[in-house]
């Protein structure tokens, strides 16, 4: 792929990824399970982007984390906080309206 197109696509995806990750954290997930979950849904995310993103969301108090040591391996689970749920719904609404608008704008161009 053209490197320019690739970098533009990365830019386009960046914000969407946060939204996708937030949407999947309504149930507790650990790092790798989240990767698989997103992949099943057709969202590819670089792992070296996802893990730091999770920590950043935690720092921003959108998600909470807890270590689960009952399993064979200790795993760190992330889940949306109350504030996170609130923010997620707002972002979701914004995303839907702006995507609709963008869709109209792009379609308009097609018709001409």
């Amino acid at each position, binding site marked *: 792929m053209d490197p320019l197109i690739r970098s533009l696509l990365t830019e386009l995806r960046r914000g969407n990824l946060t939204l996708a990750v937030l949407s999947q954290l309504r149930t507790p997930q*650990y*790092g*790798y*399970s989240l990767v698989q979950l997103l992949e099943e849904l057709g969202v590819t995310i*670089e*792992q*070296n*982007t996802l*893990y*730091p993103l999770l*920590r*950043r969301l935690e720092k921003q108090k959108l998600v909470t984390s807890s*270590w689960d040591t009952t399993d064979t*391996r*200790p*795993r*760190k689970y992330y889940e949306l906080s109350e504030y996170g749920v609130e923010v997620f719904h707002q972002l979701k609404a914004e995303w839907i309206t702006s995507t609709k608008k963008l869709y109209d704008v792009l379609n308009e161009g097609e018709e001409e």
Partner: protein
Amino acid sequence: MINLYIQEVTRRLPEKSREDIGLELESTIYDMLPEDYDEEDVKEALQSLGNPAILASKYSEKPMHLIGPKYFDVYTSFLKLILPISIILSLITVVAVKVLNPVEGGAVLETILEIIGEGIWHMLTVAIHTFFWITVTFAIVERADKENNRSPISMNFKPWTPDDLKMVTYLPKEKRIKNYEFHFGLIWTVIWAAIYFYADRLIGVYENGDNGLRLVSPAFDQDILLSFWPWVVLLIIGEVALTVYKYMKKQWTYRLASLQALYELATTVVFVVIITRSNLFTTEFLQKTGELFDTTSSKIEASMTWGLVTISIVYTVIAIYDVYKKANIKVKDR
């Protein structure tokens, strides 16, 4: 191999988050591996996590650049402002030191060459120092800044607002005083001041001797010349002040033109007073030049005096006319 990878990531992170991130990475990597894994599987897993340096930088969120977009504009403006000034100051220092401590009995040419050599060396050193310290300062500010707002800031270290435009004066191209005029103005002041205080070693009749070009008979009686020093010092101060004022105004105004004209007049008056002073030229110098042009020394003195007076007056008239012409340019306000 897994531990090595984790170490490569965590050693780049702040102490307090190392353990947590390390543990999480470890469990993640094992999650990625199948039941019975071999080295190839590990390699594949690590490959998908990518370069540890990049992963660490994404964790730490510290910038991977020296000066980012938020500060870059202010940084370059600072450099443009401070670099030339510090370079000129270093040049002035070199010239001043050289003039105050002349090489004993040294030929003029050598002294001048030495000034040029040391001047270039010092200017380079100062330029590198200035550049380095400004860069370091901004790099530190960039890292110390914890604010979430990453939009570029303007010269007053705040985000831009339309009110900032009130601080900017509209500079029409025709009236603008270029920055190099300011820099050369300062250098010119240093040069003529050095020549004045150093005239008995610089101006006169030169002869080629054993040690290269040597001044054999100075043109001026230095005692008489230096008896005017308070006036000359006043002129130097005046010129420097005027140059700085020009730099701040950045364009020709009537007030600036009047100040410049006043200064030109004062210079000419002082110059004429000095030059017409009797016995200013040394008899030796007048004799030598007289021989050169096959005429008497009194004739040489008269023609030199009046020649210089005429030149300086003509120059002053032209200069004053020129600045008023620039100040008079009408520009439509936009």
